[in-house]
């Protein structure tokens, strides 16, 4: 029997993150002999590597830069330290659960665009060999500033985006596609869709963007492309989610009920939403900061059992003399400097609301140098109707940058994370797929006129789902043309 470290309490959960990749990759013999969690590499590392190795100038779309060599950290995927497995736990501060990766600065994935391919056209695949995929773009929706390099900005600019002026630069993608039609995919994408996973949408499509915003960094739809463009972004798994997976998969092997762990409670689905807000580039003290999360993918069939907001608190950018209170109060201190004085109470509340969801004192001098602050926002998410965007605001009597909550220069893994714990009923995956496809069927009317079927040849309501389902599970042979 192979032992595995399972945290028995939130404070001891760091042991789960300390499990080595070998533990993840090796089965828990004696209880189960399945080989699960064999994730010695990032999901797209090998593909990216293959892309770097096999990629030739003719394989790349015009205008696309050549693949980055492995030694160029800013464009590597998955973002990890050299020689470190994506599931390899980083150093965790004690007493925090689940373990996080403070201070990790994963490099940015490349901003490459996938080559255009007509919908339904899938590249030939051979069993046992996945075709190389193009590097994906990061889910970076914040300003692309880097430390020391700030884009010009009008002074007095609103520090946080409002819903009407949303920061995400990606347009809201229609999650649906005309039935029976394959989504535009890159030559490296899978020809199949997952069970319980909408086949009408690619997981790496550009994230939603407020109306009126043009698609950003996405290739224009080709003559055969309908709906959203192909996935042009790469999703970087958050260390927290990786640690959850590690913990639960080991628990499964040991036969431990996952509800044993907190704060998962009875959740069997845990969804993470990365903050899409932008940082305030002004030099004013930041007294409040908004966090935006696109929660449109939350299913109505799932029972929410918990939600938490995880904010990474970085080390203050500049050091201040301890005990020397700034003149005029904390909010008049130098932006970015850690405020002096006693503990400061930070409050979290929904945007445009005075209702406080969570509050806690933070001592800028006694706090750990870096770490995650976890706020329970279940009440805020529970009592509001399902909406597309969730906006939370963090308030403090001092400059939030000085407290380490500034967004500037943050790698994706240090961005605010909304984690929603849900309990979904045991359902047939085909029924789940059929339901999603049924929701996608009405959008078939958005088919461009050039390829839209005449009313007389319109597909029966039940047929698109079947076609899409077939295309979701079976290999796509190419675009089907109506007769």
């Amino acid at each position, binding site marked *: 029997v192979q032992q595995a470290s399972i945290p028995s309490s939130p404070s001891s959960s760091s042991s789960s993150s300390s499990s080595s990749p070998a533990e993840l990759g090796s089965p828990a013999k004696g209880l189960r*002999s399945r080989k699960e969690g064999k994730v010695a590499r990032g999901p797209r590392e090998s593909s990216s590597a293959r892309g770097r190795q096999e990629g030739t100038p003719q394989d790349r779309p015009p205008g696309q830069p050549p693949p980055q060599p492995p030694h160029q950290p800013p464009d590597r995927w998955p973002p990890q330290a050299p020689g470190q497995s994506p599931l390899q736990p980083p150093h965790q501060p004690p007493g925090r659960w689940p373990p996080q990766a403070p201070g990790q600065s994963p490099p940015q994935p490349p901003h490459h665009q996938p080559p255009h391919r007509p919908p339904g056209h899938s590249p030939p695949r051979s069993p046992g060999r996945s075709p190389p995929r193009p590097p994906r773009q990061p889910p970076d929706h914040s300003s692309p500033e880097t430390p020391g390099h700030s884009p010009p900005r009008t002074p007095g600019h609103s520090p946080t985006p409002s819903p009407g002026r949303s920061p995400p630069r990606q347009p809201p993608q229609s999650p649906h596609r005309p039935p029976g039609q394959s989504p535009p995919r890159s030559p490296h994408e*899978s020809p199949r869709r997952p069970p319980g996973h909408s086949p009408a949408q690619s997981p790496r499509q550009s994230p939603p963007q407020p109306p009126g915003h043009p698609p950003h960094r996405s290739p224009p739809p080709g003559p055969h492309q309908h709906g959203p463009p192909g996935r042009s972004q790469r999703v970087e798994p958050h260390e927290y989610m990786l640690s959850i997976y590690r913990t639960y998969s080991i628990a499964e092997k040991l036969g431990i009920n996952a509800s044993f762990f907190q704060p998962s409670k009875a959740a069997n689905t*845990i969804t993470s939403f990365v903050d899409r807000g932008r940082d305030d580039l002004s030099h004013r003290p930041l007294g409040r900061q908004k966090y935006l999360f696109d929660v449109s993918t939350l299913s109505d069939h799932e029972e929410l059992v918990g939600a938490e907001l995880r904010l990474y608190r970085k080390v203050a950018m500049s050091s201040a003399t301890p005990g020397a209170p700034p003149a005029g109060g904390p909010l008049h201190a130098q932006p970015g400097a850690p405020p002096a004085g006693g503990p400061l109470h930070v409050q979290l509340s929904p945007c445009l609301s005075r209702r406080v969801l969570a509050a806690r004192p933070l001592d800028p001098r006694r706090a750990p140098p870096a770490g995650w602050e976890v706020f329970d926002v279940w009440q805020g998410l529970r009592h509001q109707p399902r909406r597309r965007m969730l906006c939370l605001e963090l308030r403090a009597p001092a400059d939030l940058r000085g407290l380490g909550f500034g967004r500037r220069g943050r790698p994706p893994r240090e961005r605010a994370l909304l984690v929603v714990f849900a309990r979904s009923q045991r359902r047939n995956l085909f029924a789940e797929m059929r339901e999603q496809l049924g929701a996608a069927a009405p959008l078939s009317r958005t088919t461009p006129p050039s390829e839209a079927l005449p009313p007389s040849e319109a597909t029966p309501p039940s047929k698109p789902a079947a076609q899409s389902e077939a295309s979701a599970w079976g290999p796509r042979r190419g675009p089907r043309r109506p007769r």
Partner: protein
Amino acid sequence: TAPGVRHGKRHGKKARLRCGRKALHVNFKELGWDDWIIAPLEYEAYHCDGLCDFPLRSHLEPTNHAIIQTLIHSMDPAAAPPSCCVPTKLTPISILYIDAGNNVVYKQYEDMVVESCGCR
């Protein structure tokens, strides 16, 4: 030693193909699902294969209907097919994947691994 040889009276592949759990290694990468599944990239799913012939073994946990059907099939193969060798117990696995909104999701998918097989 094959069961047929061991018992001395069953020969051929029929005895060797009694209903039971067989290996089935699933590689999501080979399925082309590694573009949305983060982890695991492979696991052992197993599958059920074999004949449900008369008499049914108790460890196969046959249903009453399966017992009757198997009995009828043994008497008159044209009257009814043999009962089916199917999974009788399945367990979930954890999957970390990317959903349609580019969010990383952990989900415990039910009935992903065959733990035992039986005749139904």
